[in-house]
């Protein structure tokens, strides 16, 4: 089965800067793939190459097996929602949504019915005659989504469409985007630098760094089994334990903070850093055998969960994620830490 959208060895440079380096990725029908990475990692460039706004220096982009690398953007039949509000200011909501249909020379009757469907799909009934400046940011992005979907695109491209919105609206619209995407079954390429957004919305996450792909996988895999230290550090919070491997294979932490056991860290004398998620750190009694001794520094209540920050001897700060109802410690308490090293990622 051929994929809906496919990048194969795409390279794109801007002067000396390599924005995409042999970038290869496939998006299947009905799949929502998120390009996740820090600013300047090439995720927006990949999206713009898919849309046809940027030309790849080498490599190919195919749409249902057809090479579209050199095809102009207006011939690609891809819907796009932008980070900046991109509604045409001089057109009403219904005219904005009908713009692509008008270009496709659909009859006025067809247009009206398709526009009404699109408005209903994004739950904006009653706002059809409003102009963009009469809508909130969230409503404008809903209209932009309806406009992109009204042309029945083969691929939907979303370029950080939620980043200009406040947190509450962002959450609501994120769910809305996912619902509409599932309803329509359109293959979707979503760009974001927000890891929570990526984890919540995606079928597949593609983590990028310096124009290259670091890991492609399901959100759960990317979070729980990061392929590289960069992915581990970028997706979700991480504790970093630096030390030297002891003769028995345990990790002797710097500044005599203690040692980590539970797995063999390799050859004796090797310097390395173990990355462990706060979810894999358990706060226990200081007297518990094999635990690290630490002093509670801060207790950050976050609703259902609480982050307990502790300091190890030598000053290393460690965070532990605890269910709020189980938190019994207070600042300056001396506690023990149990660390599940088997799930940690080793960084050299």
């Amino acid at each position, binding site marked *: 089965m051929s994929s809906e959208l496919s990048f194969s060895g795409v390279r794109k440079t801007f002067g000396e800067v390599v924005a995409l380096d042999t970038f290869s990725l496939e998006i299947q029908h009905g799949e929502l793939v998120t390009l996740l990475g820090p600013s300047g990692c090439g995720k927006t460039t990949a999206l713009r190459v898919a849309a046809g*706004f940027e030309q790849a220096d080498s490599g190919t982009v195919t749409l249902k097996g057809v090479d579209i690398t050199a095809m102009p953007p*207006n*011939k690609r039949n891809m819907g796009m929602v932008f980070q*900046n509000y*991109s509604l*045409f200011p001089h057109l009403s909501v219904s005219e904005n949504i009908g*713009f692509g249909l008008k*270009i496709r020379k659909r009859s006025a009757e067809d247009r009206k019915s398709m526009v009404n469907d699109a408005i209903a799909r994004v739950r904006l009934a009653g706002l059809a005659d409003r102009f963009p*400046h009469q809508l909130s940011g969230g409503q404008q992005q809903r209209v932009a989504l309806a406009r992109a979907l009204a042309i029945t695109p083969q691929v939907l491209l979303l370029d950080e469409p939620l980043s200009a919105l406040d947190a509450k609206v962002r959450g609501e619209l994120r769910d809305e985007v996912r619902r509409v995407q599932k309803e329509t079954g359109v293959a979707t390429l979503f760009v974001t630098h927000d890891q929570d957004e990526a984890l919540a919305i995606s079928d597949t996450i593609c983590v990028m760094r310096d124009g290259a792909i670091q890991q492609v996988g399901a959100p759960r895999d990317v979070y729980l089994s990061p392929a590289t230290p960069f992915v581990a550090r970028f997706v979700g919070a991480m504790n970093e334990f630096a030390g030297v491997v002891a003769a028995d294979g345990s990790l002797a932490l710097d500044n005599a903070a203690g040692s980590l056991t539970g797995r063999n860290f390799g050859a004796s004398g090797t310097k390395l850093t173990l990355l462990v998620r706060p979810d894999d750190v358990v706060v226990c009694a200081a007297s518990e055998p094999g635990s690290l001794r630490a002093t509670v520094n801060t207790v950050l209540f976050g609703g259902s969960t609480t982050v307990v920050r502790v300091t190890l001897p030598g000053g290393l700060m460690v965070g532990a994620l605890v269910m709020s109802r189980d938190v019994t410690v207070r600042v300056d308490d001396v506690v023990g830490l149990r660390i599940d090293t088997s799930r940690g990622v080793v960084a050299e």
Partner: protein
Amino acid sequence: MKQRNILAKCVLIVIGLFYVLPMLSMARFAFQRVPMALLGWDTLFKRWTIQPLFTMMSDPIFRQSAFLSLRLAFLSALVTLLVLVPTVVYVHVSMMRARPVVEIISVLPFVVPAIALVVGIAGAFRDLAPWFIRSDYSLVPFYVIIALPFTFRSIDNGLASIDVKTLVDASRSLGASWTRTLWSVIVPNIRVAVASASFLTMTVVLGEFTIASLLLKETLPLILSQSQGREPQGSFAVGLVLLVITASLLGLINRFSRRRNMAQSVTLL
């Protein structure tokens, strides 16, 4: 604060008088059948007439020159828009770093004297395309160039007020060609700037004297200048009417653009 307001109003009144008084004097000279030596307070309301305007307008040479100037004004505005809008949009979308260079080029007509422009271009085209220099429409490229400092700024400001790049990308992603994007998305959103650029070009054309004179074309300003000795009241009357029409158009543009900006700044939800 109050003192500053009073000062600002005083400055405005002085500037207003500086412009309005000569125009009032011009109006009295043009539209009153009173000898100039007798134009005073006691004759302020006596013997007003628009006859000089009709006299001037019934002159076939004047009518010919007026129609020529109007044709040149419309053509110059059209060529300006056809050349300038796509160029400045392209600069905003793809070559923003080149904008300062384009801006400097746009003010060159202020630096290069009209006579140098005419001598250079006429010299080049006299042998290559003599029909071009002979034609009245050879003035159009000159007018487009000399209006550039005003028209570029007008279009550039209009484009700076919208997110051109995103609008172009959105339109293209929806299937629109470049031409369709320009016509259906960009131009409607900078219509005040387009109207300003058009009117400014027309104003420049209707007032331009040097180039038309050097190329021996009988445009309105030339005929008005020549008829000052023959029909002084008529030429002043026409000049004043042109001034009022131009000022009214520019006032309307200003008012319309302010109303539009106010409407856009209101977010209801």
